[in-house]
């Protein structure tokens, strides 16, 4: 031990610099290796697979060149799924922001049981998606679901509503359930920012005769714009890639009206056993997500 801790004799500045450089490389190596293993390798493999015809169970490959991409871009499935993905993403994101900001404003006020409410509002976000979907499917079940029974009891409908099996109900229901599941993320971020808005600004505005709407638009919203922008970008990327909630709720139906791009990738890879085609879809999806990430990165760099 003493030998291990003994200081080495002084060496020339060049040798010391070389040793420092080597140590630097040694220290950074684990990070590089881990990043390569978890990011670069999967990316390279996906790109490689996308250029081949691959039968999923055996992973037997056959060179396909760009034919997978040509087939995707010239066929209708990709464009339809992209349009569906955008409808889902924009719809659910808008509701998440609306509910999230409204709830954050409410929880920022001095209401009774505020601490409990702040905890409970996070519940949907922490609930496993499969559990949340099963609960919603039972709530909306046409034979035994409480939602239809309540609406019939209230005289609002005569027969159960087909919430998930026809359009536009299926997309609307999926969007609303998605918003319910993910809006707490917006609440957390916005509430944290709201607590940093100086109270004297509201007092001054009140003295100047500003109403609640004017205080919201002139004080609250400008303070929230930064965090809202980032939250919207992050949620947009996550919603664009959302798989489990939609798959479990509608399976992409009716027909292909809620079949978003991640569902197409899944069906290609494991339903039709065409891993190469699935990888090509995944690469195109990744490029689209990358395009969404650029404003986020630019914004983050601008704030630095």
């Amino acid at each position, binding site marked *: 031990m003493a030998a*291990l801790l003994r200081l080495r004799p002084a060496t020339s500045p060049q040798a010391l610099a070389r040793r420092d450089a080597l140590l630097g490389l040694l220290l950074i190596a684990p990070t590089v290796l881990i990043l390569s293993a978890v990011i670069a390798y999967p990316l390279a493999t996906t790109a490689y697979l996308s250029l081949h015809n691959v039968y999923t169970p055996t992973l037997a490959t056959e060179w396909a060149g760009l034919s997978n991409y040509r087939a995707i871009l010239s066929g209708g499935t990709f464009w339809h799924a992209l349009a569906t993905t955008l409808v889902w993403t924009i719809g659910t994101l808008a509701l998440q922001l609306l509910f999230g900001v409204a709830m954050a404003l409410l929880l920022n006020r001095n209401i009774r049981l505020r601490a409990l409410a702040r905890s409970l509002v996070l519940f949907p976000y922490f609930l496993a998606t499969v559990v949340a979907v099963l609960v919603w499917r039972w709530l909306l079940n046409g034979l035994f679901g409480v939602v239809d029974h309540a609406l019939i009891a209230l005289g609002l409908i005569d027969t159960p509503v087909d919430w998930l099996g026809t359009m536009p109900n299926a997309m609307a229901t999926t969007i609303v359930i998605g918003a319910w599941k993910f809006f707490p993320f917006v609440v957390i971020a916005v509430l944290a920012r709201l607590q940093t808005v100086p109270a004297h600004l509201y007092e001054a505005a009140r003295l100047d005769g500003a109403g609640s709407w004017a205080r919201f638009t002139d004080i609250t919203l400008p303070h929230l714009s930064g965090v809202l922008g980032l939250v919207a970008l992050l949620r947009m990327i996550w919603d664009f890639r959302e798989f489990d909630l939609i798959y479990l709720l509608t399976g992409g139906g009716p027909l292909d009206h809620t079949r978003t791009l991640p569902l197409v990738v899944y069906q290609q890879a494991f339903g039709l056993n065409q891993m190469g085609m699935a990888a090509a879809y995944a690469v195109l999806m990744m490029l689209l997500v990358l395009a969404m990430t650029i404003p986020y990165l630019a914004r983050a760099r601008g704030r630095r």
Partner: protein
Amino acid sequence: MPIARRQVLRGLGAGGLGVGMALLAGCGDRTGGPTILRWWSPQATPEQVASYREQIRAFESRNPNVRIVFEPTSDEGYPTQFAAAFAAGQMPDLVTHLPSFAAQNYYDRGLIEPMDDVVAAIGADSFFPGALAPFRAADGHYCAIGIGSTAVDMLWYRQDLLQLAGIGAAPRTWDELRAACAKVQRRGLYGTALPYGMNSMTSLIFISIIHQAGGQLFTPELDVAIDSPPTYAALDFYRSMREFCPPGATIFSWGECLTAFVSGASATGIYSGRVLANVAAQNPRIADVIGCVAYPTLSRAIPPWTFNDFPSLFIPKGARNPALAKAFAISLFSPDIYPTQLRATPGHILPTLKGIVDDPVYLADPLVAKYQREIAMMAKLAANGHNLGMESPAHLPNLRAGEIIASNCIAELVQRVVLEGENPRLAVGQAASRLERLMSA
């Protein structure tokens, strides 16, 4: 004495490496432990899992160094789960209850073991005639064994409700079924519960309906033959039945169709013999007033076509211990063990081994005794049943059947015509093109 930062880091690195090596060495030390076999099946109700545990206990007591772990899969999810497991090299040691066409497909791709030695050990003569035919591969080997038999698309009906509506006999044709549904349907009671969802049940049931109109999806040589008058008649029938189904039937699959009939929400239903156990457990007040017949056909001139998925047993090529897995497979067919799984869901999984139907232990089961007539009928229909893997005895095995079902192209045809109101000719044309692409992929 001061310590240089670099030396501390070097020391930490060396220490971390040592700890990591030690941990890895510890993980690798598995000598002396029991051999673990993994068993997958999509048939996993609590009663079935309890029966599997009984079967496992019996095998483990004779083989103390073996531990068998049962892991459930699902009817809807197995193609994806198996594709991922094969790709990852994480296959179980034994698989049961997948349809015969899945086994044929996997065998054709070299993913599962031939089972000739297992069949020989059990005795090919012990099986009902034809029970092993769906598992005979193109090379003459058995790709799997029939662990059971199921009449999947029986028409279940409530005798009390039909009698109340003045209907004396169970429907035998589509017209009679439609008329019966129209008579019994009232507020809170649906005529029937058919699947219209984008799932495997819709595809599989609609394939049966096409056959019940005298049609087929493929010729015996496996050329696409879906674009034919029986398919249009089937679509017409299926569309006309929509008004007798719950609004939510647009997402119905196996569970929902079963529940609709068992709960009493519909007067008729389509399902296998699992109805018997579920009625006994969940709604015993209707237990004395239910009956089943072969699903009606377009006309009396067309014989019934029963969908039997021919539940299989096979061993993947990646199994860690195929010899032990085969020994366990053989044990599942032993006379003292085999009836255990049949009694878990009486009438649902029907025997493929001779002698079981007369076995006093099997017959002593209260549900088997109570519904002896229905179970005998289902056994007879299932024995003459078919599935997309082999639409008739004249058909070649369709090795793409699993992918056709997983593609949902038949369910999509149903949804296009019934839910979207599309022109049947266009929809059938599209389905035919997709089938051709899937067959040539």
